């Protein structure tokens, strides 16, 4: 990478940050518990729209892992999410009526909150339908992981998005608030992922899984990206560039080894495919607030009419992180 390239990236990063500051005017804080954040706390940042039903389990899951404070952007939900979270003193909420799309799919809002509150904190940036799994997550809290990352002088940790789905029709079993979504959706594709390198930001670009298989078979290039870097020791100089797929400065995207070895990595179990999905897909299609003209949701709506079963005989049933590591979807790296 030449000097000129580095300079361009620097400008791009600054632009991201300026943009985040500008977009922050759309945010109105409705619940501020940020004074309770202590110096070593692990934070979680998420943009939410009408996902109240998922929150009880989501909060429990991440509290159990050791997340100390939640920073939520409420993108104009109308399902009573704010009143549900009202009593919780480890939750801060910002409300916005702003356009999800115009804020770079929520990235600008997150960048702002991270810059303002997460400087020096290990931070998880996940959607409400994503469950973070990392090596030894059944016996060690996230703090053990971040301590290890600190001592290894690593600033970011990758976790690929792994779509989990139910067997049978997606809308067959209704999801109830507080329920572990994996009770319903616990099947996944184990070995159809393609990886390539994004030359601009140096991150990997991973596509595949059931969405690519069922919805994007004939247009694989458009299949959604699954690479994510959701755990970062944030610094106010950092910025996400597209969703949580890539960051600037580019060094943060070097979460993979190019010399034959394996770095440690985790998985985000993506529990999108519950009975709530069909309604969501319809709504998102109308709102047109998603990436590339919601091409993804158009494909879903099209296919879901006819073939709502993502399961096939080669689907793998989710057991635990060790299984994912044996299948080569994540790695312990040199953490033992």
């Amino acid at each position, binding site marked *: 990478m030449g000097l000129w390239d580095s300079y361009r990236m620097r400008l791009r990063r600054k632009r991201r940050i300026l943009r985040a500051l500008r977009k922050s005017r759309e945010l109105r804080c409705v619940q501020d518990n940020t004074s309770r954040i202590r110096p070593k706390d692990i934070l979680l940042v998420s943009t939410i729209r009408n996902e109240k039903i998922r929150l009880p389990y989501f909060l429990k899951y991440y509290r159990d892992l050791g997340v100390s404070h939640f920073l939520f952007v409420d993108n104009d939900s109308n399902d009573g999410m704010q009143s549900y979270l009202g009593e919780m003193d480890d939750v801060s909420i910002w409300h916005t009526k702003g356009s999800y799309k115009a804020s770079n799919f929520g990235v600008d809002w997150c960048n702002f909150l991270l810059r303002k509150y997460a400087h020096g904190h290990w931070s998880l940036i996940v959607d409400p339908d994503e469950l973070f799994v990392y090596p*030894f997550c059944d*016996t*060690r*809290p996230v*703090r*053990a992981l971040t*301590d*290890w990352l600190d*001592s*290894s002088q690593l600033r970011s940790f*990758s*976790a*690929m998005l792994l779509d989990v789905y139910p067997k049978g029709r997606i809308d067959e079993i209704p999801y109830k608030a507080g329920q572990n979504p994996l009770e319903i959706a616990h099947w996944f*594709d*184990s*070995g*159809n*992922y*393609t*990886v*390539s*390198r994004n030359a601009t930001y140096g991150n*990997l670009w*991973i596509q595949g899984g*059931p969405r*690519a*298989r069922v919805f*994007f*078979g*004939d*247009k*694989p*290039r458009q299949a959604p990206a699954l*690479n994510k870097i959701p755990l970062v020791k944030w610094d106010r100089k950092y910025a996400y560039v597209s969703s949580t797929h890539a960051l600037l400065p580019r060094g943060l995207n070097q*979460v*993979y*080894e*190019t*010399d*034959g*070895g*394996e*770095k*440690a*990595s985790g998985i985000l179990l993506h529990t999108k495919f519950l009975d709530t999905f069909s309604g969501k897909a319809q709504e998102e299609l109308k709102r047109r607030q998603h990436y590339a003209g919601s091409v993804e949701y158009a494909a879903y709506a099209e296919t879901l009419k006819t073939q709502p079963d993502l399961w*096939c*005989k*080669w*689907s793998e049933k989710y057991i635990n992180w060790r299984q994912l590591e044996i299948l*080569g*979807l*994540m*790695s*312990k*790296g*040199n*953490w*033992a």
Partner: protein
Amino acid sequence: MSSVGIVMLVHTALERAEQVVRHWTAAGCPVVLHVDRKVDDARFRAFKVKFTKDPLVRFSNRHRCEWGTWGIVAASQSASELMLAQFADVRHVFLASGSCLPLRPVQELVDYLAARPRTDFIESATTADVPWIVGGLSTERFTLRFPFSWKRQRRTFDAYVSLQRKLGIRRRIPYGLIPHMGSQWWCLTRQTLSAILEDPNRKAYDAYFRRVWIPDESYYQTLARLYSSKIESRSLTLSKFDFQGKPHVFYDDHLQLLRRSDCFVARKIWPQADRLYRTFLTDASGAMKRTEPNPGKIDRIFAKAVERRTRGRKGLYMQSRYPDVGAENGMTSGPYSILQGFSELFENFEPWFARATGARVHGHLFAPERAVFSDDQQLFNGCLSDNARSRDYNPERFLSNLIWNTRGERQCFQFGPRDTQKANWFMARDANAQISVISGAWAIPLFKSNANFTELRREAARLQQIESDQLQLLRSKWVSARIRIWSMAEFVEAPMENLQTIVDEIGPLANSHLSEAPKMVDLVGFGQFLQNLKNQGMHPYLMGDFPVDPTPAQTSQRPRKPYLVK
């Protein structure tokens, strides 16, 4: 009072250190604490106050301890001097850190050392004999100067090292010293330790080691060699290092491993590993169940972790392993076979080959219409789809995924010039690939087809061009695959012999001699077909020479019997 004194260097997690100190003193062992200068005064005083009533605890002068620098040695010197001066009964001094955890009852350690009153336990080896040097500095640790911090001033550090190398500056090692290195956690007898600390030359030695890199791994290790009457070159502290030279940390889930390790003390323990601290500190008698000792298992686990980090799993491409071209360390996870021209030349070749080898035999995986998996499945292991566009989006990953998903089962597939050629280079470079080509066999389906001759001619020209490019690639010098190429004419001369060599290579099942032969397609008229192509100006050359005129023996009207070789 016990005859074992503990020198403990503390810098973080003071609550844990306190717990461990109480554990030692409860068993009667005196403890001298060195608290890093970096710990602020308020915290230090609060910590010190907790031990005012304990007659077995002392605090030494404080030094600033930074990894790889002299401060750590200075700290252990001050603390050791205090220990020897204040506790006259102490016979062995045990150096520990705040994140060390005693695994066996303290009394067992005391008894063990009492039974070996003259032995110094200190890992100490000459630089030539240790493999675990990080950062490329071995002997140079002792012959260059290191005034800069490796952690904070890496560039200056590196620049100064290379400057000294360029100028050829070398330090003189003090007379009589032979540099030794080893784990910084030792247990020395009063005799040896006091000899080191009271050495008349100590000033000179200290001045020398002050500029050695990571002196805590060499100061005592070198000097003990001067005075010790009996060195046992191993550390009583279980401590494992990863490939960056940083200690592995133990967590709650290591409990069973530690229990069975049979070691006296382990480090480093994660400060929040409540279960480990609870188990080993409170329940003294049952802490280390005297089960089968098994320190080897810990070794294996950590050795595997290093291996995974530096070499990785063969043939795996994923979010945190994406090797550059040439650095793959195994491009795919296991051997597989590519068969070109066989299913054209033999009828029902695939089921026959599967029977003969016991392997999984696919059709044309790279066919333009779809990936033809074995048994005509639409999806395959790992939910791999037969969709041609998905496959052609990244054919190399399609192939490496297929091989990865079927670890433990040999994969074979048909290939040919009609198929997508985008993965050719990958296969040719892959040492796991076994490529067998009958060149020119693509002409057989054309010969059998019912298409117009102009079309046939055009198709033949296209396929011949593709295959010729492919063969050129397979013959390049960069190829690692196992490659066999026959022209069709060459192959039909001794088909069974050739098949046998391919089958033999594949696996244990194939060790027996082939008993059943595949049926070769009827080639009567093939020579004439080729001649017709030639007459049209398209010269098919890849299949070798097939005579145009049927030989006299075959002039009868009956169709010739197909080749059947037993």
